[in-house]
């Protein structure tokens, strides 16, 4: 499986504290989610096969629902899950807005302690894409790591080099 993007962050906190912030509903609620929204936890089952089901509430807007389906949890260093939009009942849905978003996104996060800090690496890619689609992702968005902004001009330039 090819990774579409990787985010690496170093947190000034011990390993177990960072792990806790992922493994409890009240903690996930405080930091996870799109900017400006309040996360309301409907269900939180932090185990392989379990779901984190939540509502994203924006001021003056309808709630959008989403879910994590945990596939692998290896305390205290690795979490693998599928993220998708959902309905209120927890079933997978398409994005509720007019943007082409993959039905499910596969995420893999690892934590390692380094000199009292915790280094987090998140790798994401669309789930269920064919090998060919994965290749397209790789080809087209490899340069995003170097700050490819997705603007028309850059996209045109990049296309021209394919």
């Amino acid at each position: 499986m090819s990774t579409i993007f990787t985010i690496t962050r170093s947190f000034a906190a011990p390993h177990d504290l960072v792990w806790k912030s992922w493994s409890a509903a009240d903690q996930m609620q405080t930091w996870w989610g799109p900017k400006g929204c309040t996360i309301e936890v409907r269900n939180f089952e932090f185990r392989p096969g379990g779901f984190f089901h939540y509502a994203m509430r924006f001021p003056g807007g309808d709630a959008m629902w989403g879910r994590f389906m945990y596939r692998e949890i290896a305390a205290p260093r690795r979490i693998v899950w599928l993220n998708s939009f959902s309905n209120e009942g927890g079933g997978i849905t398409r994005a509720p807005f007019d943007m082409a978003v993959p039905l499910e996104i596969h995420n893999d996060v690892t934590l390692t302690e380094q000199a009292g800090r915790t280094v987090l690496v998140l790798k994401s890619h669309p789930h269920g894409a064919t090998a060919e689609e994965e290749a397209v992702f790789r080809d087209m968005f490899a340069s995003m790591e170097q700050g490819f902004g997705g603007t028309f001009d850059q996209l045109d330039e990049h296309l021209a080099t394919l």
Partner: protein
Amino acid sequence: MPDTLSLSFAALADPTRRAILARLASGEATVMELAAPFDMKQPSISKHLKVLETAGLISRRREAQTRPCKLETAPLKDVSCWIEAYKHLWDDSFDRLDAYLAEIQATATKGE
């Protein structure tokens, strides 16, 4: 909502079609012009163009006899759009996680 993302990817999964898009990035071209660099007959190229047109990656002018093809960048922008948005979601969340971790550690220290 039609699954435009899948359509785009299916269309982009073929190297000939990517080469056609690359050629169109430098301007409009007719089927004849597009077929020239490939060892392919016009009907094969036309099939590829049909796939690209269905995915909305190219458009073809109706008025001209030769029906030149033009690159449409909007679906490609859609493809890059969710990646950007998803990356932002995590960057923002990790900023908050950073602040949250600092806060709980400060509280813990004060309480000692």
